[in-house]
């Protein structure tokens, strides 16, 4: 029971700073003693308390501002906290024990908590006051960047550390051309060693970010708005937006003016009190034993200790722990902890796996791990970090531990983390300091059965989110259900399984019908829903070519009717025109059909062919019959499958053409038509780098050059514009065909249903795709063979089947009219 006390009898706690450190301390304090203080919080920003770490996700468009609010205003009200947002404290009078805010409000305190955080470091260069220059620290900065990305094209980020790279990636995702200027020769040099820094730079360069390393910015240019930057060595870069992210510095101005002891930060003891015993400081503004912190894990430790002290406790002290860093750029995994490089009397173990573009390093001293750097595959980060924290003697496993936990301790597979063998006090969530035991106990004690509840109750994965897969695995293991390894969306609401789980089990358990899948995987519905049925249909079709019977009742109407439904309920009919070419006979057949069935419109589509619009459903078989007679086949313009192969005229006619792009396009179309894929699949073949066939926004693009063919993948000209990644260069047409088929097969086998190639590649990384298609010749040939095998069943024109062979006849015929 909370003792009933009159408000006036309570002590007054004033918190300067409404950020993560301050509010976490208040949360911890309320847990210990809800009634002790009357709390007033002053914040400079006009927002409630939010998760600053997630600003990069907001910038990248992965989250909204509302998603990152930690405590909404209702929380302050519910806990009787007075929040003065947008009203920063401007003075502390330690003698009178009062603070005064910008609006002129003066409030007395019994205890004061300073949590002013940091300010961005501003370099002493001219031009920083120009419009279009900002930092990357708060919501206002992110708003500035997002609105700049809507209007302008080019951005320069000054600073190639964690924050700068996340800013650069976010702006790139928002469609800007981005260059990063970095003072040092390699990126993120405080968290990564040189080798990993170079790998990171290479991968980001491939994603279209330009770099100026060893670059010292001398001036930001412009008169009314920023126009660019100049470097000391003479290099220049144009820019409509400049983001300064070279680092942060503890915000100690108030404390210094109040006469508190300050150094780089506000000096605090192990009890987190400043030189005034009634004034405490936590977070990035505090300096403990000569060190300031910038990561969330030690700040949460500070919050816990400080709350304990504020609640009257006297035994808990703060001690700095090793910390780990992770970069939040989709598809690029970087992890580091502890020492980055070996000094004297220390050893390094390094593993480079060029094929998988993975790199890992361990730094050892006296038979213990003291540091690790991981790039590419970071699944073992938590294990290494645990060995570092625990100072475990690893002499016995030193020779093989670089291969990871499962290789070392004999677990199941290389990518699986062995949850069961983890000790209870192994830390799962580094940000919030939550151990395995705490999570398991909470799941059991509170009867939790879903991930969101576990996150809410334990705070595990509530900050940066990178441990969410582990938390999900723990939940699954505790409840004794099938283990799902990632925060991947479930296939639909009918199941708790992810797409990946479902696909894996279909193959592993040899499930060959939808009913078998739903039964084996404990579906919650008898016949699924409109989301999972088409997905299962595709997964089964892909896994069991020639064996699984395609289920028309699990196809969207367009794929079932082999025509596109239009908004008035009529259909469009689009025959295939190989590589965008046609014969006179084919054109005549289209004209005849149009006249006979009184079609409303014929249009040249974006895929270089003719669309016939406004056909009534019962007329479709007859229309197809006439088109089929003229040799035309379905263009699959309705399919989650191969759509069009757009070509230019190429060498035959064009004075710039380097290869016969039209012929190559036709060959590709003949190879791939009829194929079903997770989502629609478009190709383009351009005869020269002028790229008239727009191959660089296709799922698979070919740009012909004198020496052969550049192969491009993962482009998309749709809702989210994405240029292709270059897969590789090949010399012959035969290779183009083989690589194309292998790439399509990989996409068919591994992407989630309704994933276009662009988001799939964003997720798995172009490096992975290259490792499977380019580096692994045997694997490529196997994928190619599997593709051809599937095609032997799929290349059967659906229009001919329905026009002349009576397949699906009831689909197109209404019943007799009611009289």
């Amino acid at each position, binding site marked *: 029971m909370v003792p009933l006390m009159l408000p006036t009898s309570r002590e007054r706690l004033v918190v300067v700073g409404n950020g993560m450190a301050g509010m976490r301390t208040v949360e911890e304090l309320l847990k210990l003693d809800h009634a002790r203080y009357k709390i007033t919080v002053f914040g400079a920003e006009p927002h409630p308390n939010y998760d600053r770490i997630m600003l990069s996700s907001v910038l990248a468009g992965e989250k909204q501002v509302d998603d990152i609010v930690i405590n909404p205003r209702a929380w302050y009200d519910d806990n009787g906290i007075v929040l003065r947002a947008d009203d920063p404290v401007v003075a502390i009078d330690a003698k009178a024990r009062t603070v005064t805010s910008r609006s002129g409000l003066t409030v007395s305190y019994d205890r004061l908590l300073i949590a002013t955080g940091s300010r961005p470091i501003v370099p002493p260069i001219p031009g920083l006051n120009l419009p279009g220059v900002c930092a990357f620290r708060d919501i206002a900065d992110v708003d500035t960047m997002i609105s700049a990305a809507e209007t302008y094209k080019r951005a320069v980020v000054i600073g190639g550390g964690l924050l700068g790279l996340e800013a650069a990636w976010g702006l790139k995702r928002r469609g800007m051309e981005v260059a990063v200027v970095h003072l040092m020769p390699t990126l993120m040099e405080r968290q990564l060693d040189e080798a990993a820094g170079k790998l990171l730079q290479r991968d980001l360069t491939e994603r279209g970010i330009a770099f100026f390393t060893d670059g010292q910015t001398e001036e930001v240019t412009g008169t009314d708005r920023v126009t660019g930057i100049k470097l000391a060595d003479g290099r220049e870069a144009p820019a409509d937006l400049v983001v300064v992210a070279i680092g942060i510095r503890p915000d100690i101005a108030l404390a210094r003016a109040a006469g508190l002891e300050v150094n780089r930060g506000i000096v605090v003891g192990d009890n987190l009190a400043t030189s005034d015993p009634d004034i405490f400081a936590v977070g990035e503004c505090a300096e403990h034993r000569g060190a300031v912190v910038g990561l969330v894990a030690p700040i949460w430790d500070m919050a816990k200790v400080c709350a304990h002290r504020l609640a009257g406790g006297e035994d808990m002290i703060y001690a700095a722990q090793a910390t780990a860093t992770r970069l939040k750029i989709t598809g690029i995994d970087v992890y580091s902890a502890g020492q980055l490089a070996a000094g004297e009397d220390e050893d390094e173990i390094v593993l480079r796996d060029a094929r998988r573009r993975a790199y890992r390093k361990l730094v050892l001293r006296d038979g213990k791990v003291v540091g690790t750097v991981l790039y590419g595959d970071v699944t073992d980060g938590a294990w290494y970090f645990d060995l570092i924290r625990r100072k475990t003697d690893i002499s016995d496993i030193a020779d093989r531990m670089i291969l990871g936990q499962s290789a070392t301790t004999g677990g199941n597979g290389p990518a699986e983390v062995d949850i069961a063998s983890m000790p209870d006090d192994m830390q799962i969530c580094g940000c919030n300091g939550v151990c395995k035991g705490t999570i398991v106990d909470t799941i059991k004690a509170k009867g939790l059965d879903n991930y969101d509840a576990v996150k809410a109750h334990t705070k595990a994965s509530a900050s940066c989110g990178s441990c969410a897969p582990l938390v999900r695995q723990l939940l699954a293991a505790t409840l004794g259900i099938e283990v799902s390894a990632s925060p991947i969306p479930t296939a639909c609401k009918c199941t708790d399984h992810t797409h990946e789980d479902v696909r894996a089990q279909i193959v592993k358990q040899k499930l060959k019908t939808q009913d078998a899948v739903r039964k084996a995987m404990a579906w919650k519905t008898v016949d699924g829903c409109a989301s999972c049925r088409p997905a299962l249909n595709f997964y089964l079709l892909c896994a069991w070519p020639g064996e699984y019977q395609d289920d028309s009742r699990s196809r969207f109407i367009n794929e079932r009717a082999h025509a596109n439904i239009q908004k008035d*309920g009529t259909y469009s009919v689009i025959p295939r025109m190989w590589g965008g070419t046609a014969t006179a006979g084919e054109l005549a057949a289209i004209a005849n059909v149009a006249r006979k069935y009184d079609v409303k419109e014929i249009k040249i589509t974006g895929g270089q062919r003719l669309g016939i619009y406004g056909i009534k459903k019962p007329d479709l078989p007859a229309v197809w019959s006439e088109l089929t007679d003229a040799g035309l086949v379905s263009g699959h313009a309705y399919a989650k499958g191969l759509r069009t192969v757009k070509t230019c005229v190429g060498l035959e006619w064009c004075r710039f053409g380097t290869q016969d792009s039209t012929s190559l396009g036709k060959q590709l179309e003949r190879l791939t038509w009829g194929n079903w894929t997770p989502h629609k699949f478009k190709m383009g073949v351009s005869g020269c780098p002028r790229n008239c066939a727009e191959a660089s926004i296709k799922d698979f693009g070919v740009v012909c050059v004198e020496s052969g063919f550049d192969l491009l993948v993962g482009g998309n000209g749709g809702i989210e514009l994405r240029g292709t990644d270059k897969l590789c260069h090949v010399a012959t047409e035969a290779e183009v065909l083989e690589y194309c088929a292998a790439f399509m097969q990989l996409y068919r086998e591994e992407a989630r249903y309704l994933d276009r190639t662009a988001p799939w590649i964003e997720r798995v990384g172009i490096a992975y795709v290259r490792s499977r298609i380019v580096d692994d010749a045997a694997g490529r040939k196997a994928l190619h063979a599997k593709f051809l095998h599937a095609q032997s069943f799929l290349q059967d024109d659906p229009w001919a089947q329905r026009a002349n062979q009576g397949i699906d006849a009831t689909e197109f015929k*209404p019943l007799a009219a*009611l009289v």
Partner: protein
Amino acid sequence: MPDRLNNVMTWVKVCHLTDILPLGARTIPARKGEIAVFRCGDDSVFAVLNRCPHKQGPLSEGIVHGHRVACPLHSWVIDLETGEAVAPDIGCTPKIPTKVEDGVVFLGVDDA
């Protein structure tokens, strides 16, 4: 069972159950607009006016699951037992009574 109810509705034979594929639908032209007849996975049969309350999409072309159908145009889900849209969407399409006897599907047609 009486073929007439209060002199306002007549049971009219429209097809055999097997004329509709499981989890499928057929359409019937009618004076008041096209009717969609659905056969669910458990062989129960429902009929509604073939018009989604949202943008008049042809419900007969949607994916049938449970006793529901998802409209092919914008994926509204209609409960075939009531004709009501499933939350959060709000709307209703008129429902026509059905019965199945000895494998024959009947619709209840208004005399008025």
